[in-house]
């Protein structure tokens, strides 16, 4: 009996081993991030050996696969920003209204039924949304705007907007629900209606969380690939007009990957260079968004 209670070295060793294995699994998250940064930088380095960073950031022509090659990333960045802006113009009003409704108005039952549906909306594969943009939304827009190109940035932008509505609304709703009940009760005690309370008390109190939702939604829209690859066209085009067709950063990567370029060629390296730009853009928005989210958590 006494023996059994003695410290068992084997058991101790096993515990330490298991802890080490679990730690390695968790640490893999850091390794993946490092690997992403390393691969993007490594391949971009050879790209910037051929192309000056100045040309990359200032030229307005992107034709890396042509005889007369130009390497200005601005057209791709413009395409990305225009589609994302259209997406936000759709997602912000709808997402915010849904969030206010779910957090302040909806009876418990309605919320329980509707939220799963919104989650399903977010889970539809993006390639299906691409088909939707090309085959339904663009033809519908062409009824209103007959001169609209079959490939344009407006249709896919709207579809991406619908896609990120659940994301924006659920993050905003979280922020609104974090507002303490006492603030609402104070407002109701002054005779305010639910709408007044929502607009004048809850929304201002939750504003940094709501803005975080918009920023994170923007980051989603920037990284979205299949919808724009299918419906926005493949031609780099330096324009701010959403009715025109233009390639985004993501659409360009898809186009090159489908073309089966030889490993090590400048075209192959170019997708890593634009990928780096994409990564940095989303990283910036993600950091901003998380900073804003942190703030609303700290207030109460």
């Amino acid at each position, binding site marked *: 009996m006494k023996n059994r209670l003695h410290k068992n070295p084997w*058991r101790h060793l*096993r515990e330490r081993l298991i802890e080490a*294995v*679990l*730690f390695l*699994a*968790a*640490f*893999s*998250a*850091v390794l*993946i*991030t490092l690997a*992403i940064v390393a*691969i*993007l930088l490594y391949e971009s380095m050879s790209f910037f050996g051929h192309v000056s960073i100045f040309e990359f950031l200032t030229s307005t022509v992107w034709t890396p696969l042509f005889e007369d090659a130009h390497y200005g990333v601005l057209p791709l960045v413009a395409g990305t920003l225009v589609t994302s802006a259209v997406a936000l113009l759709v997602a912000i009003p*709808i997402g915010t*209204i849904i969030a*206010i*409704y*779910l957090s302040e*108005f*909806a009876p418990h039952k309605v919320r329980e039924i509707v939220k799963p549906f*919104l*989650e*399903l*909306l977010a*889970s*539809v*594969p*993006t*390639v*299906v*949304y*691409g*088909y939707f943009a*090309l085959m339904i939304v663009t033809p519908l827009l062409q009824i209103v705007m007959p001169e609209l190109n079959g490939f344009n940035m407006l249709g896919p932008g709207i579809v991406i907007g*619908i896609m990120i509505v*659940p994301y924006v609304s659920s993050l905003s709703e979280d922020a609104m629900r974090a507002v303490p009940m006492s603030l609402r009760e104070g407002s109701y005690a002054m005779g305010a209606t*639910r*709408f*007044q309370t929502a607009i004048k008390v809850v929304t201002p109190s939750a504003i940094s969380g709501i803005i975080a939702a918009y920023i*994170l939604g923007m*980051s989603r829209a920037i*990284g979205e*690939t*299949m919808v724009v690859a*299918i419906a926005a066209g493949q031609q780099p085009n330096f324009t701010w007009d959403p009715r025109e067709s233009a390639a985004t950063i*993501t659409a360009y*990567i*898809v186009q090159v*990957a489908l073309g*089966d370029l030889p*490993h090590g060629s400048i075209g192959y390296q170019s*997708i*890593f260079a634009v990928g780096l730009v994409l*990564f940095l853009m*989303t*990283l910036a928005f*993600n950091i901003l968004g998380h900073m804003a989210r942190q703030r609303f958590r700290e207030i109460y």
Partner: protein
Amino acid sequence: MATPQNSKKLRSLIRRLKFNDYVFSLVGLVCMMLGVITLLALFTNLLIDGMERLNYDFFTSFPSRRAAQAGILSAWVGTTLVMLVTAIVAIPLGVAAAVYLEEYAPKNLLTAIIEINVSNLAGVPSIVYGLLALGLFVYQMDLGQSILSAGLTLALLILPIVIVATRESLRTIPREIREAAYALGASRWQVVSDHVIPYAKGGILTGVIIGLARAIGETAPIITIGALTFIAFLPPAPFSGDPPAGLFDWLQAPFTVLPIQMFNWVSRPEEAFLINAAATGVVIIVGTLAMNALAIWLRYRIRKNIKW
């Protein structure tokens, strides 16, 4: 003072404000319905467009130059095998990482760095994972444009989803359960493996299903690693053929998956292939929605049945 005039004004003000309230609740309802209606419209449209191709032959034929004879055999087999690899890699890795962060991790800088990385990875666009896989798996590690590369890529992609879901589910287990086990002399791993993980099983499963449903629909990273779009053969089954294929030869085989097949058909100019694309879309949507519905139902049941 409550003169008749004042109270009339007040009454009209109240009426107006109540009316605003009512209008907004209608607007909110309409906006939510917009989401539901979009989902239904999308699905019915796909179903109507693709109905005529949704038959037995569609599932048992290879892609073809003639739209009416083309099928998705190689695509759904490819999707299944890639998912198998993804699940085998992502589930143990994700659950282990979550157990470490929730049950073991000391509060220090290193833990904070890991946590920041997990939440950052969830926000990295999927196509960037594709670039990572192209550079690392396909060329540096020389795995080629294979099922293994694709499965690993998607495993990395859904890792944050699995980790976050598992952590949430571990967190719902009350501390008393752990303390009771420690009081009986259980070691840390015994507490985790005999008590915490079994009780959190349902929540972990929900997270895994949602992660895999996401992986099924992912197209961009797999296109980036260079999956082919026209595959008229199946990966070798173990011990089949002559000379017989090895047990794991299928891992190195070229492949295609359902979303890529759909993308390929959408980008063709011929109208007939759009019908195939729609039919493939129906298959993908039914797959992901069924998995998500299963996860939502599981979560609902867990919430209802378990009361600590």
